[in-house]
Every structure is written in C-alpha cells, then in structure tokens.
C-alpha cells in the first residue's frame, strides 16, 4: 500500500513497496499519459515531476516516495489550461508518433522552471530523452519558444 500525492490528490494505492512509481501511476492511478519506454531510466518516456524536479519514474520504487512529495504527471501539467510547453509543442507541430513527447514536455517544463532562458547548449545537455522518430530539431525549437513565452508572460 502506498499513499501518493498525484496531481494534487492523495491516492491510496494497493501496490507492493518495490513497484516502480511508473506502474503505480499507470496501473493503479490509471493515468496512462506517462509512458513505459525502457524500465531502466534510459529513455525518459516515464518522466514526471517530483516536487518540481524531472524524475524518471520507471526505476523509482514507490517506497522511496512519501505522501508529502508532490507528483505531477502530464494529466496534471495542463489540467487548468495547457502549459506553455504544450502550447509551444502544438504551435510547432513537434510530435510525430507522440509516444516520447509527454516525457519530453515534462522534462522541458521542469527545466524551464529552474532556468527560464536556457541556452542551446544547456537544452541539449539537459533534455536527454530518447525520440526514435527524430523530432529533436523541433523539440529544441519548442523549448526555446516555450521559454520565450513564459518569460514574456512574466514580464
């Protein structure tokens, strides 16, 4: 049994302690926007925010997460209105198959929360998610567009 704070709700989930957070989110909380790609923390398809920090949920057991820690998934990111990252992704038609893009956007949203105007080199170093369709040029453009929008909105 695990108590987890997912998208602002405390959920009591009937899982074993060593169940990775990813599978608690997908199969117990029923939020399938967070994807399984590799299960070993390599590809980033499973990225969620843990207290605002981009975290690969596939290799993190639920026992390592307390109910005081806030878990944000893609379903929560744009719950009230689409996040600027989602809007930038829509505007630039970033997605191809789309499978990795949830993780890409979660990684980007966390990056921009820490660093509002990352350089190209910082984006390239920080966004390490795998995309097999090869959307990287538009991902790069998407991060920059979202950063510009968020900076402008703050100003």
């Amino acid at each position: 049994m695990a108590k987890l704070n997912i998208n602002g709700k405390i959920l009591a989930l009937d899982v074993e302690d060593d169940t990775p957070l990813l599978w608690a989110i997908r199969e117990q909380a029923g939020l399938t926007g967070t994807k399984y790609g590799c299960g070993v923390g390599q590809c980033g398809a499973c990225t969620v925010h843990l207290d605002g920090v981009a975290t690969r949920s596939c290799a993190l057991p639920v026992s390592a997460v307390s109910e005081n820690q806030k878990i944000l998934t893609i379903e929560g990111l744009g719950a009230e209105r689409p996040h600027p990252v989602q809007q930038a992704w829509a505007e630039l038609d970033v997605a191809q198959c789309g499978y990795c893009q949830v993780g890409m956007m979660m990684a980007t949203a966390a990056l921009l929360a820490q660093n509002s105007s990352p350089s190209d080199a910082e984006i390239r170093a920080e966004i390490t998610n795998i995309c097999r369709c090869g959307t990287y040029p538009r991902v790069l453009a998407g991060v920059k567009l979202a950063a510009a929008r968020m900076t402008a909105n703050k100003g």
Partner: protein
Amino acid sequence: MTIQTKSDQPLGRRPLSRRGFLAGAGVAAGAFSFGFSIPVPAHAAAPGAATEVGAWVVIQPDETVIIRIARIEMGQGSLTGLAQLVAEELDCDWDKVRFELVTPGENKRRGNVWNTQSTGGSRAIRGSQDYVRKGGATARAMLIEAAAQGWGVPAAQCTVAKGVITHAQSGRTTTYGAVAGAANALSPPATVPLKDPKDWTIAGQPLKRLDTADKLDGSLVYGVDFTMPGMLVAVPKACPVHGGKLKSFDAAAVSKMRGVRQVLKVDGETVAVVADTFWRAKVALDALPIVWEAGANARVSSDTIAALLREGLSADTPYVGNRAGDAKAVLAKATGDKASRVIEADYSFPYQNHAPMEVLAATVRWTPERCEAWAPTQVPEAALAAVATAAGLAPEACEIHVMRIGGSFGRRLQTDYLRMATLIAKQVPGTPVKMMWTREEDMVQGRFHPVTQCRLRGVLDAQGHVEALHMRIAGQSIASFTNPAAVTANGDPFVFQGLLPTGAEMAIGYTIPNLLIDHAMRNPHIRPGAWRGVNLNQNAVYLESFIDELAAAAGQDPLAFRRTLMAKHPKHLAVLEAAAKGIGWDTPPPAGVHRGLAQVMGFGSYVAAAAEVSVDKGKLKIHRIVAATDPGHVVNPQQVEAQVAGSFVYGLSAMLYGECTVKDGRIEQENFDSYNVMRLDEMPVVEVILVPSGGFWGGVGEPTIAVAAPAVLNAVFAATGKRVRHLPLKNVDLNMS
C-alpha cells in the same frame, strides 16, 4: 482520465468520438472510439447524425467533415497528407476536417472499398494518392449534384468553395452539411476529373497535423495504454535463441505470487504470465524457472556469422542484380596492368533493432464465436488473417481495431506478436487480455535489420575514369524469412534496392561501362525484418563510400567525379547538385570543418545529402546536413521536412551506435543502455531542400535515411583520412595516427 479542454484550441484538433457508424459487434471502430474506456467528449455528434458521401467522406450537419484514413499512422504524418488530398478534391473547409480510422474487417465486408491498409515501403501517400483524391472528387460531385437537384438547376452551373455550394445565377447557396443526406442517396459518378497539382490550395501546403492534440495532454490511447473492464495483462518470454524451444517451466513456483492468474505455454518456444497488472506479471515472469532447449543455434556468434558472410564475398554462385559489359574480365586484365589501378575494399553493416518507443502490445478478447483485437499494426489485413488463424475462427468472426502507433519503423509489418496475443487470449476465454512485451523482450525478439558484408573492386584507367566496378554483397535476405514466395530461384530481388539498372523505384544513378552487382545469400538464424530504409541503408553506405574512395584514388573532387558518372541520370544528379549547392560545396568550409556527399534513389524518390563534420581528438561532431529530395509531388512540405530530419536521426543512430551482436546464439543488447541511440545533444542542424519535379509520386519516409550515414562517413574521411568501412562508428578510433 482525460483532460477536458473547452475547445479545440490551442493544442489542436481532437478526434471525434462517434459510435456505431463503422460498428462491428457493438464496438465502434477507429482509434478514438474505444467506447469502454474513454469518456465521450461533450462535442461528439449524436449517433447516426453523420452521413457518408462515398467511401472516404462523412459529413455532419454541423459541417464537420470526417475523412476516412485507411493507412496506418505511426508518426510519419501520412494521415494528415492523405486527408489533405481528399479535402483538396472535396473543396471543403480544412478547418472543419477531422479523421477516422477504418478497420480491416469493415473493409473486407465492403469489398475492400478503402483498398489496401498495409503501410510500409513509404507507400502511404504515393500508393493511395490516386484513389483517395478520386474519393474526395466523387464526394464533391455528389454533393453538388444533390444541391443542384434540390434547386432544379444543372450541376454545371454550381460552384463550391470551402464546403459552400453556390448557384450564382439565382443567388442561392447551401452547404455540404445541408445536402449530405441527399447526396448520400445518389449514385456516384463513373468518372471524376482530378485537379492539376499546380492548382492545389490544401494539398501541397505546410498544414499542421490533424492528430496532435491528444499526444500533448497524454490522452491518446496507444496499444500499451488500452484497457477494458476485467482485462488481464500477459507478459511473454520466448526462447532467446531464435529457433530454440521452450522445454519446461515451473508454474507452481510463481502461481501464488500476488496478482498472478495463469502461467501458460503460448507455443513451442514461448511462455507467458497472466496477471492483473503488467508489473505483477513481469515480476512473476522474472521469477519463473524456465528451461530452454536452444539447439544448434546456440553455437552461433557474431564471429561465426561474419565468417559465413565473408565466404559469400568470393563465392561463385551469386545472384546478379545489375550487369553491364564484363566487369570481371576488366578486373582480371587490370590486375597487374600498370596503366590501370584496381581499388578494392570490404565493408560491413551490423544487425539493428527497430526499437520503437512503444513496445509491442495488443489486447485480444477471444470467445468460441468471435475474436477481437485492439492492436497497433502496420498491416491490418495480414493482422486480421493472423488473428483469425490463431483464434481458430473465420476472418469474418474477427476484427482488428487499428490504433495509432508509438513508432514502428517496420517492426509491426510482422504479425508474430498478434498471433502470440491471440494464442494467450484463447487460453483465457471471454476475458480481454492485453499482451505487452518488456523492452528486453522487444530487443531480443526483434525482426532485425539484416547483416551484410560487401566487397567492392573498381578499376580506374590512366585518366582516372571508372572502367569497371564489381560490387558483391553477401548477407541475409529479409524476404527469405518474411515472404519466401517473393524469393526467386536465383535469390531475393529486394536486396538490390538503389542498385538496379533501371526502374521507377530504386535505380542506380551511375553509368559504369563494366558493372557487376551481385548478391550471395547467407542467412543466419537471427530473424530479419524490414527496418526503415531496408536494404537501401547498407547499399548506399557501400556504394557511396566506395565512389568516394574511387574519387580519392583518382585525385578528383567527389562532386566533380560523380558528375561524370551521373551524366545520364539527370534526376539523381539534380538532387546531388541541390544538396551540394545548399552546403556551399564551391566555397571553403569553416576552419576545421570537412564535407561529404552522398546520393541514392529509393522508394521512388531521388535524394542526396551533404554533411559538415569536424573531428577533434578523435571525437566526431556532425554540424550540419543539407538534404535534397525529389519525390515528384510534395503533399505537405512541413511533414516531409520532419520525415527527412527524423530519418537522419534514425540512420545516424545506426551509424554512430547501432549494433546488435550475437553470443551463444542470442542477441546481446537488451535495452537502450547497451543499444544506444542519438539524442538531442548530438543532433546536427538539418536543412531540407525539396525539389519536386512532378510527373511521378515517390515516398518520403525512408529514402533520405540512406544518405545521412554515407555523407557523414565521406566527411569523416575528408576530416581524418580514415575510411570507416565497418559500422558502427563507436567501434572506430578516429584519432589521427
């Protein structure tokens, strides 16, 4: 859980949810209408309100135009391009267009009204453009006729724009939504004219994709996400040595583990654990004692495979794909002749895994009377046949609810996993079972890009002209495994992609007076499959690298050298010239930067690339690649650009890292930690030049993948003087010696 947004904006269009129109057994078809698990959006139309006008177009009273999509969308964007082609001829309002996926069962019931659904070979657009355009034009004619009959005027006096029909003489207008019902009752015209592509306003435009919004909020249900009430999850494991057998397993050791419902034999080589969740099934499967009977293949390794292929390089019973003059005689004469030079080199290309981000999965519900699958597949008709066979039922008693796929690249051209999912579900009658593979299973049980070697021998005369070339490929035939009927007594004709003497699909771009290109088939036990670009990948690496070797030996510029050989191949040459111009071939590169070129024809299109790289302390950096493509016609330049850049990532991932090795008969790489791929930090700038010359329809998903690697490898040679002949590059020391 679905995020409800108030309107379509700003994330884009959402799929409609309509029940019952293409209904089969009470479950609506289409990627978005899994009525069990997905809430119906508030803006969905009432059942029956939409009207079909011809097979491809459905119109709702609110003027929404639903375009049927028969080919599979797996990221390549053809869904949007196909909709553009229909909408162009329909003259509807693009802003009101939505899409709907058709199913193979419904297609079969209606006499294949949507033609083939199989999606591979970069054929989605080029293979269906004619009949989908006619589908749009037919619907347009029927809608206008319906309006004209209602007004009692000749249809020829009516015009239409954005779904509004006008009779100018009487000043009357109506809409597609208003006349769709009447149009539905009309007989379609026998023939319809199609627009000249130069008059296109919807097709040919860089329009946004129709299928984006639900990818951005996580609500798109992929095969791995699908769920139904009472559903169980099965995780399979097959003998890691292909061709080996499942000898035994100790079900009792795991059957009491939490969530486990069944441990079952799937077939002679596969076991599966069925549990209430994927995770519990996986944990139990990992704990399950299994005894394999690997057989003789357990003695095979990468070294024994390499030796098998190497023998083929000099074997004397090859299959000839292209012959001109007498290359062997010229080579024999030139050997030892001081005026001529013989250049010789051996190359190799290793096994690759498709590694799509979405692992293989499918949900099947079997009863003695009926079998349904919710399945990502590239081949709906073959999937239906495979499921029916495994289910022991007639195809008419089965259905495949096709889905949009999280990347595929050729893996789901095979139906092995659907057969497996059905065999599992059959052992849990009445219960929907989602079979889902682990990444590790996906990596080991792939259908691999075939392994090949190539020996090239060229003769340069005293003036540096190519007098003769013999290209011998030795390696695995995909078709001999996937489609043996396509293999002739001589060999597999598909191995010569990009190398054939003539033809509209994959012809060589060089004229060499004495040319011999032949193939010695050597088939290891590792199961092969079509991997994006297929045989064009290695063929382009081999030939384009070796042409560069010949140019270097002749002391000539690689572009000037190719021009001489390509004089009789103007379309091949035009894209090469465009790429060279784009990179600035005639001007010196920046300090420390070096350039390389490559060109090829494949999948009906002419493509070329020019790369700029630098090598610093043995580390390669790819700065920029300019790609030129002539696919005849371009339906959506933005999507073509995305395909070109994406294909480069796929091709360069293979060039830099991709290598599946074999030890004790099994593939060694089990995940992305040992099968690395390119990421954002290594992504070069990609500039895409489109030079559609008209008059033909080529593909765009695959051709450019084949020019990325040789263009970069030729630039690496320019930078280092090192000719990389054996991929991947990670195994090569680029330090100056």
